[in-house]
């Protein structure tokens, strides 16, 4: 795909974030969509392309009253929205549609109008993982981390520092769920969830949603907001079973999607002003820094513990507070994209001065899928 041919011209989250007891999941889709449409200065009838995950496109399109000629229901977990951005950019470039709306919403905490996730007993996961006591992401996602720590000499304190630094970012964000400062000792003394991870190393569980609107870069000039261009994109999947990853020393999906996006954008790591790495759990930024090629894996823990991703430091990472402190409805990728767009527009609560390139890296399932988007505000 050619770079900077498609732009984000509308972006918004749901009016409320956190605990939303008065709206169904479907209504949260609509709330986010209507906010994004208003942000772009469009009408619903201007939307001719639509993408969403978990809910079907027909469900959300009918509820909103959208009549699309292009749809994408790719649903690979929390990075689905990165894949939607990639697919939408390709579709707009190919002339299949002009204006794409991507929505995410999840009543992750209140569970209103949301089907509980279940694992069929005759699926491979149901036969070869569930009988051994996995029960939700906290019991599955951290399974690789002890091997990763041993291979690369990562310490428990370094993994705790991920949560500490992200809380520093969250403290600057009025919409963040958790804003009180924490220390490494606080993290290591918080309630044990699944050794080696404790409560403060696990994502929040909240309600919310977000939506993006994309159109061609040529049209983007006529919109009210500063366009944010899609500079590079990548995607991949590996396995729905965390036990079957090729290795626990890296993620194949990350290592495929990330470098694809960098190559397409034609950028080097030193060009990255702002970075989002989907942090469902505290080890993901370490995998991301290594798999995206920012540094050798051995250095990732020390890099964060030494403060290199803090406010004011050289590589601002997860500047909204991340899934650990900002919000995590279950499929956090949309919120990472929203923060990248805010940073490129120059309107983020914890704005990185003069940021021109933002890399947004997502995960789906337990390292099952990945999508990476490189944004820029210069064409």
């Amino acid at each position, binding site marked *: 795909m050619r770079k900077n041919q498609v732009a984000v011209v509308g972006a918004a989250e749901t009016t409320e974030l956190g605990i939303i007891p008065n709206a169904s999941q479907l209504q949260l889709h609509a709330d986010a969509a209507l906010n994004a449409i208003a942000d772009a200065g469009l009408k619903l009838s201007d939307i001719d392309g639509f993408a969403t995950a978990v809910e079907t496109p027909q469900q959300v399109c009918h509820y909103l009253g959208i009549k699309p000629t292009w749809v994408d229901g790719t649903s690979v977990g929390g990075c689905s929205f990165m894949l939607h951005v990639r697919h939408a950019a390709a579709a707009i470039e190919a002339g299949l549609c002009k204006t794409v709306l991507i929505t995410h919403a999840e009543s992750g905490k209140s569970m209103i109008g949301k089907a509980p996730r279940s*694992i*069929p*007993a*005759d699926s*491979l996961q*149901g*036969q*070869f*993982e*569930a*009988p*051994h*006591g*996995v*029960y*939700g992401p*906290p*019991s*599955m996602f*951290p*399974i*690789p*981390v*002890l*091997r990763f720590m*041993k291979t690369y000499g990562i310490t428990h304190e370094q993994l705790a520092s991920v949560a500490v630094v992200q809380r520093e970012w969250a403290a600057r964000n009025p919409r963040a769920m958790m804003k009180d400062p924490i220390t490494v000792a606080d993290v290591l003394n918080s*309630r*044990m*969830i*699944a*050794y*080696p*991870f404790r409560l403060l190393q696990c994502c929040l569980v909240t309600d919310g949603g977000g939506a993006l609107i994309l159109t061609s870069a040529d049209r983007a000039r006529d919109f009210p907001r500063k366009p944010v261009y899609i500079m590079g994109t990548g995607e991949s999947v590996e396995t729905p*079973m965390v*036990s*079957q990853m090729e290795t*626990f020393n890296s993620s194949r999906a990350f290592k495929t999607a990330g470098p694809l996006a960098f190559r397409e954008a034609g950028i080097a790591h030193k060009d990255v002003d702002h970075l989002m790495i989907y942090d469902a759990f505290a080890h993901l930024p370490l995998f991301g820094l290594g798999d995206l090629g920012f540094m050798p894996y051995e250095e990732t823990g020390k890099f964060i513990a030494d403060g290199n991703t803090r406010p004011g430091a050289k590589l601002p990472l997860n500047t909204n507070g991340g899934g650990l402190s900002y919000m995590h409805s279950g499929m956090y990728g949309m919120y990472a994209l929203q923060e990248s767009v805010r940073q490129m527009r120059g309107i983020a609560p914890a704005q990185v001065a003069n940021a021109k390139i933002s890399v947004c890296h997502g995960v789906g399932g337990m390292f099952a899928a990945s999508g990476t988007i490189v944004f820029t505000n210069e064409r």
Partner: protein
Amino acid sequence: MAEPQRARPKPTPETQHFWDGTKAGELRLQRCDACAHVYFPPRPFCPSCASRKVSIFKASGKGFLYSYVINHRPAAPGFTPPYAIAVVELDEGPRMMSNIIDCPQTPEALALDMKLEVAFQQLDDKITLPVFRPAKG
């Protein structure tokens, strides 16, 4: 009301041989007749070279502890926390999720790379699960 039960696998035609094996006290893997790749979970073709000529064989049951978590909460139905959810790398190459028995469920006792051997835990008259214990000697 009955106690909530541990998740029970429901075999499919492609996996039946594996569950027949555990019931008979064997850990069965598959090997590609064309390229010799050994793989898991079961399927009637080779995920490395796509050959449909594959054989089922009895694995050694030996391996080592590749990684794990010790789950505290929320606990799965039928489990008393804390309990380890382990990934075992078999001597033949494939890895599988399992549990570690005859071993304290603590970080001190559960040393990565410790040698393990398969054991079998009968759930009911249809399903026996493969679990692992520290290898003797």
